């Protein structure tokens, strides 16, 4: 296609066909209109900011705009971190378990963890809290994980290791240190790690051609039990909300998570690492909260109403776990005054399953009086099939929302009732 190349050359006003091999950037000042100029003429490229302003006629050298030479030693000192390898820092802290996080204990709670994840390994030595900070939320292969925080229980302390990537070309080493840190882990504890942190780490490991040590581990993602308990009760289930509402921990001067990418980019682009300390602090609080959550969530599941959780959802979870007793207990413990319709129905259903009809009726009747259609249906069935009180059954059936099923029920009941009346007439 030399003709094509020539045409392209002409289109660009070049004297000769363009060289195929790309020249090193800005090796020589270009003679034809620069790419920037051509793009500007075409109405600009699609994205982003205008090209960085620079003095006219002063061709910036490529090196000047490449990654600045960054002094990691200074950064490490400022952050209280050690340099594990070029481009990889690690801050380690050992926090005594005796201290509390908010009003929550830091001790590992194997019973709580096994309650939330029945096949979780029981030994806290193998547990690993994990939380990442990323260059953004866009997803895909262009999103970096620049910080991985890990917390492990070691005797009387919770040991935090926070790996920080300070150079883009050091990612392989960064990931190798991460792999080493989780090599003996058996269980991951995270908050939304299943759909966020782990897929991103998997992508990074793939890109670096490293095996993924995380994907095979048991994983307790605490977002799921939090959602179960509080999705219908709280405006959101962000970790900060969980801390404030459940752990009694209020963050002070916290760097919002959304600003973490900018803090990292400021370091990468300009060597400005001032806000990376705040990112480390933010990440550490995340780790502590996740570490404290299982025990508190176990309490929530045992007694949801004490924490303002949704008893119906928790009861269903107990049911699915095969513990109808606890399900009934959870629902029964709720104050009838604040028990919602869903919880009342579930409790009535549980009573019915246990053939405790008076208890079930005691729940359905007030619901029906309040106009609840499902209660009318339950009562219509109960009176037609079990109590054999066709009149009452019909009375409830008539209150059902119009539809083919309701019509059929009413028709059948009317017919049965007529037959019963004829029979009783015939008997006279």
């Amino acid at each position, binding site marked *: *296609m030399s003709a094509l*190349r020539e*045409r*392209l050359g*002409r*289109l660009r*006003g070049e004297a000769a*066909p*363009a*060289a*195929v*091999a*790309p*020249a*090193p*950037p*800005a090796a020589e000042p*270009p003679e034809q209109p*620069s*790419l*920037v100029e*051509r*793009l500007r*003429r*075409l*109405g600009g*490229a*699609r*994205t*982003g*900011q205008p*090209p*960085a302003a620079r003095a006219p006629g002063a061709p910036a050298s*490529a*090196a000047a*705009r*490449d*990654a600045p030479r960054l002094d990691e030693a200074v950064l490490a000192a400022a952050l209280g971190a050690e340099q594990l390898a070029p481009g990889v820092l690690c801050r380690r802290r050992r926090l005594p378990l005796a201290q509390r996080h908010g009003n929550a204990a830091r001790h590992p709670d194997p019973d709580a963890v096994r309650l939330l994840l029945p096949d979780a390994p029981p030994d806290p030595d193998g547990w690993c809290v994990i939380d990442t900070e990323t*260059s*953004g*939320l*866009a*997803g*895909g*292969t*262009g*999103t*970096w994980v620049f910080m991985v925080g890990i917390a492990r229980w070691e005797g009387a302390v919770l040991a935090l290791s926070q790996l920080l990537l300070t*150079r*883009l*070309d050091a990612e392989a080493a960064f990931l190798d240190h991460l792999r080493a840190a989780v090599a003996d882990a058996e269980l991951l504890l995270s908050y939304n790690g299943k759909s966020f942190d782990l*897929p991103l780490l*998997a*992508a990074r490991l*793939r*890109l670096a051609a490293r095996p993924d040590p995380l994907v095979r581990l048991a994983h307790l993602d605490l977002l799921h039990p939090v959602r179960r308990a509080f999705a219908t009760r709280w405006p959101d289930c962000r970790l900060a909300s969980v801390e404030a509402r459940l752990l009694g921990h209020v963050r002070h001067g916290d760097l919002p998570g959304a600003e973490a*990418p900018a803090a990292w*980019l400021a370091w*990468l*682009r300009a060597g400005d690492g001032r806000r990376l300390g705040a990112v480390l602090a933010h990440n550490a609080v995340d780790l502590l909260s996740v570490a404290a959550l299982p025990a508190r969530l176990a309490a929530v599941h045992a007694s949801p109403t004490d924490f303002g959780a949704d008893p119906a959802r928790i009861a269903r979870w107990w049911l699915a776990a095969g513990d109808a007793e606890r399900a009934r207990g959870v629902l029964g413990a709720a104050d009838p005054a604040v028990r919602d319709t869903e919880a009342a129905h579930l409790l009535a259903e549980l009573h019915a399953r246990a053939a405790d009809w008076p208890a079930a009726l005691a729940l359905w009747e007030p619901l029906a009086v309040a106009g609840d259609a499902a209660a009318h249906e339950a009562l219509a069935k109960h009176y037609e099939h079990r109590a054999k009180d066709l009149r009452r059954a019909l009375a409830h059936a008539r209150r059902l929302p119009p539809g083919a099923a309701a019509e059929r029920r009413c028709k059948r009941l009317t017919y049965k009732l007529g037959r019963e009346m004829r029979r009783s007439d015939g008997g006279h």
Partner: protein
Amino acid sequence: MSAIAPASSDPHCARPPPAPALDATAPSDDRVRDLLAGLQRKYAPRITGELTLPAAPARFAELPAALHPRLRAALAARGLTRLYAHQREAWERVQAGEHIVVATPTASGKTLCYNLPVLDAVLTRQAKALYLFPTKALAQDQVAELSALNQALLGGAARGQGETLGIKAFTFDGDTPGDARKAVRTRGDIVLSNPDMLHQAILPHHTKWAQFFESLAFVVVDELHGYRGVFGSHVANVFRRLLRVCAFYGARPIFIFASATIANPAELAARLIGAPVTAVTDSGAPRGERHLLLWNPPVIDPDLGIRASARSQTTRIARAATKQGLKNIVFARSRLMVEVITKYLKDVFDRDPRRPPRVLAYRGGYLPSERRAGEQALRAGRVDCVVSTSALELGVDIGALDVAVLNGYPGTIAATWQRLGRAGRRNRPCLGVLVATSDPLDQYMVRHPEFFLGSSPEHARIHPDQLLILMDHVRCAAFELPFRDGEGFGDCAEDVGEMLAYLRDEGLLQRTGDEGRGQWFWVADSYPANAVSLRSVAEGNFVVIDTSGGKQTIIAEVDYSGAPGTVYEGAIYMVQSQPYQVERLDWTGRKAFVTRTRADYYTDAIDYTKLKILAEFDRATKGGGTSEDAAVAHGEVHLVRRYPGYKKIRYYSHDNIGYGNIELPDQEMHTTAVWWQLHPRLLERAVAERFGSRERAVEGFLGAAYALHHVAALRAMAEVPDLGRAVGDGQGRWFAVVGADGRGQLRGPDNQPVAAPDVMGRFEPTLFLYDNYPGGVGLSAPLFDAAAVLVADALALVAGCACTGGCPACVGPILPGDEARAQTPKQLALAVLGLLAGQGMAGLGVQRAETAQRIAPARRADA
């Protein structure tokens, strides 16, 4: 779905033909010939051209000896024990490691050309394949086809153990639920998707597809002929990215393309992947005798050149075919026309509601279930006549038919043949009729049968290095994998390093490492593929929102470049012939709010285009360097388009019934153009001796531009709006328009009228055809190369038009009475075209007679 094909079917082809019509009283061979003879007898003057392609017998080849035994058994279970010659050729080429493109006629068994090597490789070496189709529906069709083959052995007819082949074929598109995606990625042997999904969902997440890419052995691209223009240029870059990702995983897939007939399938495919591609074009499938008629509706008003509607003719032919018991398909160009023709035919054939319908409409906008039911009825032969848009042009399985009627020229020769190919059973004759509308393209085509019948289909062209498109995909590629210093981007001729530096300066990339060994990493918090649509150049399409009845419904999308001329406030915007009025245009929000209207007029924006030549790439002269010269050149131009107002034009009468103002910013664009000029001395002589005034000469240029614009669209395999036209001086000092009085006018830079004699300097009108995309998408260079042919085509179009003084089918609309002027717009345009053709002054006097003689077809329509 039945796994076993009917015994009568052709197993070489994915799609068995329908059972013969049960009510047949004569063999359909004779009935097709009867219909043809009847049409020829009764309507001879309307038939402007005829073509008969003789029947061709099948040429077979053995199944390859190396074929996996279970695949062989499955094929045998479906009745296939040998291949057509081209299917075997495709197999051999692929086994030799060549990329191939199979370009054989419709229903020649193209699908097996790619399924055979792919399925064999899946069975023998756990290879994986990616199939790309332009639409979701086609991918779903293909899944059904693969699963039928997969289950062929379950029928028990073969000696297999009643197992499936175990091949997992999944579609992956916008409808694939999130929880199914993982299974598609990790377990699919064959993933069927489309270029847009590859671009936006697969490549940016390639790590999730790592297993798939590691084993990717084949990329199958069906309907290759659609990958042209802007879309094709984008897809070429998507393939550059795909190949980069494949290289990362150590895969080097073989590409297998399937294409309808175009002039340059191998060239197009090679441009798409930047590597040589072998064409397999010699079909071994049998073909019945094929007849084609070009049909021009009769003239009913010779002065205005008004003809009977194409719709009336189409309906008549379809009616005759249906009455003969011939299965037929009607292609219409709009959904509305589909509905209208369907109604007219149903009024004849489906009057009894108790009988199953014989006529079926098929178009986009129907629910998928409705379309499926229609397809099934067609395959089963329960329907006699189907009326469709281009929706059935693609490879949707409807079985084969006897007659195809095209209501209007589809715009390209390739698309025409593809639609005509819907008719034609093996070993039986079939008939195609192309009915011309009054559009210039149609009229040109039908009056110059040699153009259509004699020339090969168009070249499909792409321009992958179009700078804006290229930048978009370099950005996406940098997101997917870091670039290394010195790394190229496919066969891209641009300096990749310079582009990366640009992206770094935008803050999207960061480079690390020593000189020559550095890497360019993506560091921005964005997902660039989401900002890039494969179907356009500039971003920011406008959406048209219908606010009728208090609701807000998006009814259409308008390209950024087309918006100022179509959705200005007050404009009548048509969707499927339903008029809407634009109430409000939100320019920055890219929204046009419209309401339904019953207006009896349409609107036509008045736009003034100023062109300034920035750089001339090449120039050619006609006439040997004398003062008789006409020159043609191409190069880069700067274009300013202004829309000061619009005209309201009443339907049918085309009276101008009012004006409105348009308040929009000027549109500026850099693009490429081809332009024609006359030597000033020649023009001055022509003005003195032929035109009488500069204004008349300018009118001639405007008419010539109109004709050239349309024939150029024909040559460039482009739509008319892909090109723009203008007449001016090339310096931006003046430009020409047709005034409200129908006369040519010259306007100055601010649109003020200027008198031709006052124009400063030389009077050198320049006729431009420009590429209507920012930066150009490569349309102008081929037009420059074909400039002489274009002028000859335009001359033939105008001279051969049946009108008296000019009409929308040749030089553009004229005002009533213009045909009686001393010099009609048509004569003026012919004079200019003659000069541009290099005929010099000598050509002017004898222009008409000579041209008419040269191009007169053997059977002039309605002569």
